[in-house]
């Protein structure tokens, strides 16, 4: 049995067979039909690559400067999605050392995803009544069901998004996503929910673990065996797909022009022959298995890049896999390649000569000397002078997940769900926005991950084009619209008053603007712009007291719709203005 794409097709056909009214109801205004914009396909503007008049200073020596709001916010912007005021307050109460240790703390594993796609409303034609899994129960132990997998995958994706939205002040979610971008796989290619979920668990258990062991587990993970055809790699018909990406994308890379050869790809593929899916236990534990009978027992000769190493053939697939990884991980390129990827994920895409010498090389050395343990590398990087350099702050163009999830987090929004079906519908909105901004969790464009982290020279700028720039702002507008609803009572939206209430003195328009800007934007903005923001709160009137009076009117009559509306309208305009600033796209 193989997981065919037919089931996926059937799933989408089912979605498409909905009546237009129903589709409209489910998708709200965000139907699948995209607006026709005359500039949608325009070429990217020609902006020269960074001028680098200022390079990032400092090396890996521990940061000893002040530990204040600016540093704590920077740490959170880069290691979590969005910044929450509560997280900031927490880290501000620590030293820099404690704060980074807190960010890197191990967390318990999350609960498994559940069936949120079976609505108990019998008139609902959009849901799926899973015969094997009651609503509210997890489906990760259920047998494969071609009709259910599309729903289970969306349940899985929503579960993941939910974990990111509700994450703590901890690096785990951003690091898990880093590994998803690194060991990239696609739900669309392996249309089986629990294989994806199991793979995701593998990513999160290894977030800060040992990269070499991690690589071994990924190599024989059923998700990867399906995705890169490892399960079809047998001695009589070797499939080089995984063996190539293992070297090109997962370990040594091609940064060094003198890299692995085509013969090394063939030889590695031969080492990996016989690793497959244990079909007998497929429906229960989805194990992988080594079929010695399908394994090539000949010796495998590698090129001079690997010191002309030979891996002796045998029926012991595990030993040969270990030997292959030992050989690969002896290459300095592995640590350099991974450290550069970490740098581009957490710091900046442009690695100039100084950064290469002062950061990449020593970190790679540290990585190797610690036997490829990831945590010491991250700890050293996040505590370094280089990481906290002022020049480094705000130059990261937010990913779509930073925008979608990060905005929810900054506004303290949990995904609202009165019923399980509400949960499913709400997450389908979030799926939509991730998708139109070109970063759907679970579905990178291909095995190389998202272009923004590898495409020279544009890198992060790949995120922002005429279409995605509009969609990013459309998401912000939608978050204020009240249109992201599954029912009259279940609405996903920003509550401007609740947001403002958390600041030191919401009745003071000067400090309120100041604190909101500091939370939402990575660099200070000019006094002129702050005055403009304040004038939105004041409807252009000259005296701050008008806002103060309005705020206290609201405080004294919080149930009077007009008192609420007066502050709500002005806060909405002011906050939306901040979120639509180009500066909000940066972290």
């Amino acid at each position, binding site marked *: 049995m193989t997981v065919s794409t037919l089931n996926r097709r059937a799933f989408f056909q089912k979605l498409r067979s909905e009546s237009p009214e129903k589709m409209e109801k489910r998708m709200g205004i965000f139907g699948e039909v995209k*607006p026709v*914009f005359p500039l949608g396909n325009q070429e990217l503007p020609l902006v020269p690559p960074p001028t680098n008049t*200022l390079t990032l200073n400092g090396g890996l020596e521990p940061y000893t400067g002040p530990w204040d709001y600016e540093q704590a916010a920077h740490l959170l912007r880069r290691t979590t999605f969005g910044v929450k005021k509560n997280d900031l307050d927490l880290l501000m109460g620590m030293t820099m050392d404690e704060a980074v240790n807190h960010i890197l703390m191990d967390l318990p594993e999350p609960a498994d995803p559940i069936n949120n796609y079976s609505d108990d409303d019998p008139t609902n034609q959009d849901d799926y009544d899973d015969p094997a899994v009651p609503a509210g129960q997890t489906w990760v132990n259920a047998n494969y069901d071609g009709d259910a997998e599309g729903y289970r995958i969306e349940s899985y994706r929503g579960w993941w998004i939910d974990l990111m939205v509700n994450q703590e002040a901890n690096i785990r979610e951003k690091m898990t996503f880093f590994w998803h971008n690194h060991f990239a796989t696609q739900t669309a290619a392996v249309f089986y929910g629990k294989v994806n979920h199991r793979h995701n668990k593998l990513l999160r258990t290894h977030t800060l673990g040992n990269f070499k062991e991690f690589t071994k587990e990924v190599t024989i993970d059923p998700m990867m065996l399906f995705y890169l055809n490892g399960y079809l790699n047998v001695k009589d018909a070797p499939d080089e797909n995984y063996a190539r990406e293992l070297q090109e994308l997962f370990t040594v890379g091609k940064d060094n022009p003198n890299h692995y050869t085509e013969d090394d790809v063939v030889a590695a593929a031969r080492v990996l022959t016989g690793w497959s899916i244990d079909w007998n236990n497929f429906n229960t534990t989805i194990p992988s298995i080594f079929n010695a009978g399908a394994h090539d027992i000949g010796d495998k000769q590698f090129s001079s890049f690997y010191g002309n190493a030979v891996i002796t053939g045998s029926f012991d697939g595990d030993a040969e896999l270990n030997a292959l990884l030992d050989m690969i991980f002896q290459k300095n390129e592995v640590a350099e390649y991974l450290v550069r990827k970490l740098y581009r994920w957490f710091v900046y895409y442009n690695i100039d000569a100084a950064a290469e010498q002062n950061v990449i090389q020593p970190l790679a050395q540290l990585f190797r000397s610690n036997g490829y343990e990831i945590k010491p590398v991250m700890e050293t990087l996040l505590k370094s002078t280089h990481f906290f350099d002022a020049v480094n702050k705000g130059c990261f163009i937010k990913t779509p997940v930073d925008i979608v999830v990060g905005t929810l987090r900054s506004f303290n929004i949990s995904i609202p769900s009165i019923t399980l079906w509400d949960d499913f519908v709400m997450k389908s909105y979030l799926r939509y926005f991730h998708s139109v901004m070109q970063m759907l969790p679970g579905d990178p464009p291909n095995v190389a991950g998202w272009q923004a982290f590898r495409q020279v020279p544009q890198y992060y700028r790949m995120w922002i084009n005429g279409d995605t720039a509009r969609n990013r702002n459309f998401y912000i507008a939608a978050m204020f619209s009240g249109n992201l609803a599954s029912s009259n009572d279940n609405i996903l939206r920003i509550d401007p008053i609740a947001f403002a209430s958390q600041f030191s003195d919401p009745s003071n328009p000067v400090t309120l603007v100041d604190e909101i800007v500091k939370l939402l934007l990575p660099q200070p*903005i000019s006094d002129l712009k702050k005055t403009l923001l304040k004038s939105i709160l004041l409807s252009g*009137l000259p005296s701050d007291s008008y806002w103060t009076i309005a705020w206290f009117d609201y405080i004294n009559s919080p149930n009077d719709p007009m008192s609420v509306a007066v502050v709500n309208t002005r806060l909405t305009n002011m906050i939306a203005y901040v979120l639509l600033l180009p500066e909000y796209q940066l972290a």
Partner: protein
Amino acid sequence: MKRRNFLRTAGASAAFMPFIHNGFSVNPLSKNSLFGMLGASANLSGKVMVFIELSGGNDGLNTLIPLDQYTYLSSHRGSILIPENKVLDLNGAPDTGLHPSMTGLQEMFNNGLMSIVQNVGYPQQDYSHFRSMDIWQTASDSGQYVDTGWLGRALQGEYPGFPEGFPNADSPDPLAIQIGSILPLAYMGTAFPMGMSLGNADNFDDAFLSDFVEPAPATPYGDELEYIRLVQKQSQEYYEVIKTAAESQPDNLSPLYPPQYENYLADQLRIVARLIGGGLQTAIYTVSIGGFDTHSEQVEAGTPDQGNHANLLRRVSEAIAAFQDDIRLMGKEDDVAGMTYSEFGRTIAANGSIGTDHGAAAPLFVFGKGVNPGIIGENAQIPSNLNNSADVPMAHDFRQVYASVLQDWFGLTNLNDILFQDFDILPIFKGASAAREELNRDVFGVSNYPNPVRTSTTITFTSFSNAYVTINLMDAQGRFILKIAEGNYPTGMHQVRFDRSNLPSGTYFYQVKLNGMGVMKKMLVF
């Protein structure tokens, strides 16, 4: 009756359509513009309205000065009252004059380009800036909470799908444009604003609103910021059409504009004029000027025609006069009108700080070639004794002005969807009565015979319930002349005889109001 698509671009064939459209006659001005279109102008746009907000609450009594009330005004607001000999005359209105700063508006009035509506406000004045602004923007009652804007509702009625699928071939241009950064509540539809602001999120050309675009620093942050700014600007749905319009009208044509940066309102109206001149089909523009909350130092002590309020009014007058001239020179004056408004007026009495406090009603100005020139309504009566917080009561609901704009300028008929209730139309726009005549015959069965009137005429109307009815006679400018009838009328058809007596020949209107719902009809007297 089918709604007219007032904002949609008329196809070329529309130029040959009969002037009677959907049962009522089209504003005669459209005739001119339709013929005009066959000439040099390639612009097929419909009507344009420019809304000018005077933010803070304008002192109406020092703007449009009721000269017949001067005696009591001097005792209540002597410290700020404009000296009588400095007040600017208005042709045909000997009892009313303009602030001496407003020479531009005086000239426009005297040239027949201005309709002034007296004492506009709303019932149960709230006196809070924020609430009052929101009431004007949403067209709600004083005690009513509405979260959509009146222009947003008007636009949503015409473009129910917006913003999805916009812009498109039929509507390539923004539906409404706010010059400046703060998108007005008036534009709010049920979920999304129906208009855009130029300047919001730095997305418009630096040449227009450079004051909000700060140079990015020479750092990696600055590099990425510049990139995002550029793409965001270019990804604005309407960037290209706005840029094209601005480029096709690279200069303002009127020499009357003050130098740039000296008059913020004029700077905004320059942009509006260029966009209109450049062929943008946008029907609604809003601009704003602040500073009217003149609690103190409204005037210069000792020289009350000078000072803050005088400077504000000078800017308003100068800007509007230059804009009107610009629009005329661009050949667009048949299709463009504008109006001022402020969230409320100010107290009759001056306070101890040479200023005035929040009050109820104030006049507003509607301008353009399409208006019926003149003053609608009477000067307020200033009592001899009053307390410090006394103000000018409302004579016209601001929603009557909105209703007139929607019906008589934009040709909309779904006024109840937009304004929630019926409001009497005011004769602000030329041709307004003709439109109403056709419309109202169907609804109320109001007519008079004979018409024209020589000695007497009989007014017929139908009351659909036991109603309190008033019938007033007004002159061509909408000024009240006399009461024809008043009282309770049972359900059914009624006839009221009216004797001409010594009424001079001319054009008059008579208004039949049933339970507050009004119908205005034209009556010619020979």
